Structure formats: C-alpha cells, structure tokens
C-alpha cells in the first residue's frame, strides 16, 4: 500500500510517499502565499518524481499550518503527533523531540513505545522560532544554510540579551557597529534561540535521548548551542526536515 504525508509549513511544503513501511519518494517546495496551491503543486511534482499514478495512493494525511487547506487529504492531523511518529520511525529510541518551525517551536515527549505523552509550544511571540533565525540571518547578510557553520567558528560568542526578535535585530546592528566579528555575533544568535528552546525543554522535563526534527535540524549551529545548554547529545537524521510529512504518511497507513 502507498500512502502520502503532506506537511504544509509556513515556509516550505514537504511530501513523503511511503510504500510498505519504507520511503518511496520525498519532495520539498516553497509554499509562497497560497498553501492550497502549494499542496496541489507538491502532489503533482511528487507523483511525477515517483512515476506513480494518483490512484495508487491509498490514503493521504496532511499536517502543518496549512493542513486544513489541503482538500485532497483524507485527514488533517496536528504537527505534534506527526513529528512524534516521524522521528520515532527515523530514530526509534528518541524520547524528547525538538522542532523549530517557521512560526512555532515545540518540544515533544514520547514514551518508550513512541506515543506522544506531553508537549509544549512557544508562547505567542516569534522569539525562539525559525522566523527568528531567518530575520537574524538576513540582518547578518548570510545565507541561512551557512549560518550554523559560521557560528561554529566563534571563540567568544557575543551576548544577545533581548528575547524579542525586533529588539535582538537592533542589538545586532549595534554589535556590528561596535566591530564585533561575524562569527561571534552569529554564535550569540544561536545561543539566544537555544536558550529559548532550553527553557521550553525544562518546562516539560527532558527525557533522553533527545532528537531534533524539522528543517532547523540541518543547522549545525542550533544543534551545537542546544547540546551545550542541555548537556546532552542531540540526534538528527538527514531526513529530519521530512519528519512531519513522514509521520503523516505513517499515520495514513493505520487510519
């Protein structure tokens, strides 16, 4: 049986085709302003990539912010459950999952069987979300892909005290003006977001091992900051970005 999981985030849309418990194909596109259109496009391109027909897909589950705009999905499920399922599949012994999304960050606790037992999400503020990193990367005129690596080269991270995205941005401007080097500022930025996540982890109570899901898991700077703050190894998978979509595809199997 083939199932499809679609994760429509605020920035990217991800799709995973699952066949007999293994990944058949995956695909990622930018969402743009219309999540419904993005869903249609993702489906079409994914079918082409996998060279299968729409009718071969038994069931579709959608997740992410735009989940309710995907009218061809059989069901919409929240990201918490999907990331839980997805990461449990990729890294089976994980008990704590950190996901930094475009406008939501979450910490999810799984029991030994991989069932979600608790979670927290960031409060209303954008600090501690992927948006924070985007804004900061732009302020530093660095491509987001290289942002993490840059921070690893720092020897003396700058202090960024404001949790507010807007104020942190102006703090950075003044650090630059003071002549602080790029690496140190960038490292300070990663530690700043790390601290926000750290307090969320403490709020639910960390259970090891810890893994990261979502696109930000590819950012080595965030991983490094979190490892330092949480004093534990953070596992990731090259497929972490597809965590939510994969979980949705897995859920579709049992629906």
């Amino acid at each position, binding site marked *: 049986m083939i199932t499809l999981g679609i994760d429509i985030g605020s920035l990217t849309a991800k799709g995973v085709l699952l066949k007999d418990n293994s990944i058949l194909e995956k695909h990622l596109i930018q969402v743009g302003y219309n999540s419904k259109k993005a869903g249609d496009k993702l489906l079409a391109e994914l079918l082409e990539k996998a060279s299968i027909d729409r009718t071969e897909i038994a069931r579709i589950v959608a997740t992410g912010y735009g989940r309710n705009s995907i009218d061809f999905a059989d069901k919409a499920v929240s990201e918490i459950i999907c990331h839980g399922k997805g990461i449990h599949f990729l890294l089976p012994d994980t008990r704590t999952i950190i996901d930094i999304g475009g406008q939501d960050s979450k910490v999810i606790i799984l029991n030994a069987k991989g*069932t979600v037992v608790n979670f927290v*999400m960031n409060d209303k503020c954008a600090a501690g979300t992927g948006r924070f990193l985007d804004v900061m990367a732009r302020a530093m005129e660095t491509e987001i892909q290289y942002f993490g690596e840059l921070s690893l080269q720092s020897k003396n991270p700058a202090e960024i005290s404001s949790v507010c995205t807007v104020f942190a941005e102006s703090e950075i401007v003044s650090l630059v003006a003071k002549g602080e080097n790029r690496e140190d500022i960038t490292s300070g930025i990663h530690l700043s977001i790390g601290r926000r996540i750290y307090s969320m982890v403490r709020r639910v109570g960390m259970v090891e091992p810890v893994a990261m899901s979502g696109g930000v898991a590819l950012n080595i700077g965030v991983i490094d900051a979190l490892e330092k703050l949480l004093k534990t190894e953070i596992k990731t998978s090259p497929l972490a970005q597809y965590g939510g979509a994969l979980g949705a595809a897995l859920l579709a199997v049992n629906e």
Partner: protein
Amino acid sequence: MAERLKATKEMKRIMRRYYAQAKYAHYMGKKVAWITSGGPVEPLIAMNIIPVYPENHGAMLGASKKGGQLSEFAEGLGYSPDVCSYVKDDIASTITKESPIKGGLPQPDMLICSNNICGTVLKWYEIQARNFNVPLFIYDTPFVHTEFTEEAKEYIKEQTKEYILFLEKVMGRKFNYKKMDKVGRYSLQSMKLWKEILDTAAHKPSPMTAFDAFFHLALIVTLRGKKIVLRYYKTLLKELQERNTKNIGAVDNEKYRLLWDNLPIWFRMRWLSDKFANHQAALVADTYTQAWCGVIDYIDENDFLGTMGEAYTRIHLNVGVDQMADTIKDFIRKFDVDGLVMHSNRSCKPYSFGQYDIQNLIKDMDIPVLMIEADMTDDRKFSESQVEARIDAFMEVIKEKKRTK
C-alpha cells in the same frame, strides 16, 4: 449538538431587570455602589443599596467584542498596554458610553473595592473615585500565603466593622442588622446551590460545560443575597439533575473531560466551545466559577457578618500557589478529567502568574496541560490559528494517551 439549557432564557430576563433597576435607581431614590467581583456585597443589599459590578460589565463588553477597541482607547489616554483590560474597558466606557447597556453603567454613589482578587483594583477604584467624586471604601484582605493567622482574623473583623461604619455614614442611617441576617442566609444558600449546580458536572456525560457555568455565574456574582438567585438556581439545578437521570450530555458523545483554569475568553466562547465539542471534549469544570463557592465552609450561617471576612480573605486568588494547585488536584479527581487547559491571561496577573508553578506541582496527576495565551476581553491578544493548532495537538495527545492506556 445538545440543546441549550432551558433555564437560560429566564436568566437573561433576570439580568435585564437587574440592570434596568440599577439604571433607574436614582429615580427611585436608591443609591448605587460599584463593587469589585470578590467584594463583600451582602451589607450593601442589607442597606438597600444596588450593587453594580464593572467586572460583569467588562465581561459583557468582552462578549460583545468591544474589549480590544476600548482597551485601545484607554491606551490612548496613557494607560499601559499591560494594565488589566477590565480596567481599561471600564475607564474607556465611562467616557465613550460604549456599552451593551444603553448609556453605560449607572453612575455610582460610592465605590467598594476589595483587594482579595488583585492589587490592580485599588488603583482602578481610586481613579474612578476621583472621576465620579464619590466616597471609596477599601476592604483590605491580607494575602493568605500559607495560613490564615489569628492576626489576620482580627484585622479582617476590624475591616468589616469599618465597612459598616462607612455605609452608615454614607447612607445617613443605622445599619440594618436584622435584614443582614436574612441576606447572609440567602447568600450562603445561593453559594451552596451554586456548588450543587457545578457538582452535577461530575456525572458522565456532564449535563453542563464550563461555558454554561461562565454564563450562569452572573447571578451569583451580582445578586447573591437576594431571594431571586435561590429561585433561579433551584430551577437550573433541577434541569441539570433531570439531564443526569436521562444521561443527556452538554456535548454530544462526550469522550474527553477537561478542566479550565483562569477567566474565560469572553469574545471567543462560542468558537472555543465548538472547537472542543468537535473533539468530543467537554470542559466539565473550571477554577473560576468555583471561586464563588469555594469558601462556604468558613461561613457560619448564624453569624454571616462575623465570619464573612475570613471567607472573603480565603478565596482562590488570595491564597498561595500550593493551595491553588491543591484545589486543581481536587477538581481533577472529582470531575475525573483527562486534561487541563490553562488560559494564560494577559490581563489577570494574579491568576496567570503561578500557572507554570502549578503545572509543576500537579505533575504527579499525569495529565496533559495546554496553555492558551489570550486575554479575557482584549481580542487583539488572540491569535486564532495559533490557538487552534495548540488545541488540535492537545486533543490528539489526549486521544493517543487514552487509546494506548
């Protein structure tokens, strides 16, 4: 969808009549007192003074989606965005007359403020006392960090005495102790009835939800001490008991039971209730409406005036976090709930401040907790998609948990 409670209609009628009477009080030679929601209202009723609650008015303004707009107006006057929206709504409405009641609340002849709910009310009532140029009485309740001491007991007894003196002075006549005795008995009885009403929700399925409680609360807040409250609550109780014998739930096919903490989000009651009902979840109880019957045990029906001070001092918002957590634990057990929904209310600091501590203190209950960030009347502080995402995730976690148990 289960039908609405039949009693509701009568309740609306009573409230309308109450506000009409308050509005025309001055024509009938009566005096009006504005009073805080946790304030000792019974002596006012014994003195034939009509009590009016700006907080209840605030709830009405919130429900009619005027909260954000009025708060904005007040902020334009210089009030900080962090000030409680009930305060801002009231101050703004006093000026703009924006209100579901034509012309706004009737003008007060005196103000009665008790700080058993928060410190904000002190400044609020001082401002309004200057504004209306009327006498203000502050019924000062010491905070009960861990225990209610002998000194506190003495102190609060003095407060009650001063309160009576204040009323005698303002009204220019002796206090009516005989009527007070009757009013006290009615008040206690209505609290007991209110408790019985809320307790019907322990039944599965629950015949009412917290949203019903939020609505029916208005009577015990505004009119406790009056006979009409008894009559109405008896009717309501009967209807709920009937539902229970017939196993009629307020939420169709109730599967999950939740507890709500903090004030309601007045401008999103419908939306929230539908949202939870779609998940077959009933908010069966809440800490807010329970506050009006949580102190029954401290009151002696033969000496209401002498014992009310302790009761007013020991209400939910005037005790330490440990005790708040204990109360929540009791409700979790009594109403057998699957999850706790905490409204982190931008306005109400005393209610919201300890919520993370409470979460830690109730960890051993092993139930998922959801935090919703909002405000009771200020719709600018509410983000629908964020709240929706959190509720969906929370309900899925509860479902998974129940399924795999």
